[in-house]
């Protein structure tokens, strides 16, 4: 509403009032990119740069890593803080979501499709979607069976062998 055109300027001024550290916290993101770029830079150099007549495997990654490091380095200084969202306690929920997806993959390899699919749907519907139990379980069963029919029976995708599928597939 009333801030001056350069929002980043405002941010900087205001944050001086608070904590200098917190206002610069967002710079971690470009710094991470710089670190990644430098890492790639050194790895690429080790692969062998060759020369223009016969470029080595490392030449192209090297050039690209230079571009990444360069742009990220400038961003460390110029990127305005309003581009960044603050961290919230809800971030924990994301960890939960990620763990559930990881478990899904592990179970998928061990148990085939149907059981993990049911579990994942049920979890996401009930916990993250806040659906009532009845809906969650019903939809999870229907979804798992439906996708099994679609992918395995209709499209013939070779899923890992399941423990339940033989019963279902006949």
């Amino acid at each position, binding site marked *: 509403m009333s801030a001056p055109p350069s929002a980043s300027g405002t941010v900087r001024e205001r944050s001086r009032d608070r904590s200098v550290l917190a206002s610069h916290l967002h710079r971690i993101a470009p710094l991470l990119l710089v670190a990644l770029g430098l890492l790639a830079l050194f790895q690429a150099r080790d692969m062998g740069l060759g020369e223009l007549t016969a470029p080595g495997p490392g030449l192209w990654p090297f050039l690209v890593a230079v571009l990444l490091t360069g742009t990220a380095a400038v961003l460390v200084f110029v990127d305005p803080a309003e581009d960044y969202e603050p961290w919230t306690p809800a971030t924990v929920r994301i960890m939960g979501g990620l763990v559930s997806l990881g478990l899904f993959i*592990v179970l998928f390899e061990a*148990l085939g499709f149907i059981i993990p699919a049911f*579990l994942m749907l049920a*979890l996401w519907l009930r916990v993250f979607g806040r659906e009532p139990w009845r809906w969650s379980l019903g939809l999870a069963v229907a979804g798992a069976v439906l996708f099994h029919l679609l992918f395995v029976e209709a499209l013939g995708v*070779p899923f890992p062998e399941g423990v339940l599928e033989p019963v279902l597939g006949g």
Partner: protein
Amino acid sequence: MRPLRLLAALVLTAVLAGCGDDAAPDAEAVADYPTEEIRLLVPYTAGGPTDIAARALGQYMEEQLGQPVVVENLPGASGATAYLELISSPADGHTLSMTALPTAVLNYLSNDVGYTREDFAPVGVVTQVPSGIVVPADSPYQDLESLFEAARQDPGAITVGTPGATNTHAAETRRITELYDVPLTVVPFEGGSEVRTALLGGNVSAGFVNLSQDLLPAIESGELRVLAVGTEERLPYVDAPTFVELGYPELTQSTTTFGVIAPAGTPEEVVATLEDTLRSASEDPEVVAALEERYVPEEFIGSEELGQLFVETEETFRDVVGD
């Protein structure tokens, strides 16, 4: 949270279920082979030459062996994905894979891909596709000598397109430079059709490619000219001399061999049964027509010779790939 407890219980079940898997084949199973469905892995995608060969073969094997043969495409990592699946399967003849030489060997020579030829039990050869050096119709080079001469005159002037970076054609072209001191620049493309595009557009001087079925019409119509073929003897369907008769006796390693392999440790009786099936397939007119008659070897190449070929290929290319 209740779902989580349920999840934990299921993880436990999964772990327990994972422990009771099948072990080595017993003697009884060997005698009755095959006792169940056979998986025939294809290291490339559906629709390609390897896949088509596998399907023709699979159908025949199904009729002969009396068990279903399921063709499964596992493309990736130049075939390593399929080979790794093969060697991690029980060595009882119920999991087989198609293979393409020398790619299968070059692959493990140039990178650590988790397998070598010693992990395989060769069964037999299905088809062999020859290769050759081709130039576009308007190329100034009428024969191999003038092409090589131009290269010696001006190193770097002659560029040779190949269908890949680590395949036979690239390796064989480098061998030309190494063995006969002809400075050729290898320019790898993605697949034979890209090499053709580059030839037609005049972007490379020559191409070293498989004389496969998709290329033959262009050769017959005169759009492309074959300067030399990489076989021991002349080919009945291509009017071009061999490298051997042109004075390059070493250049006979570029033919691609498609074969069938089983995991190492597969019982000899099982391999023998499969070898017999392949041999009779190579004599069955219907299968031969499906495989393309030109590419089916006149004399069947069996388990032992295919094993030999693996060894020879490895010896030939070990040094080229090393550097």
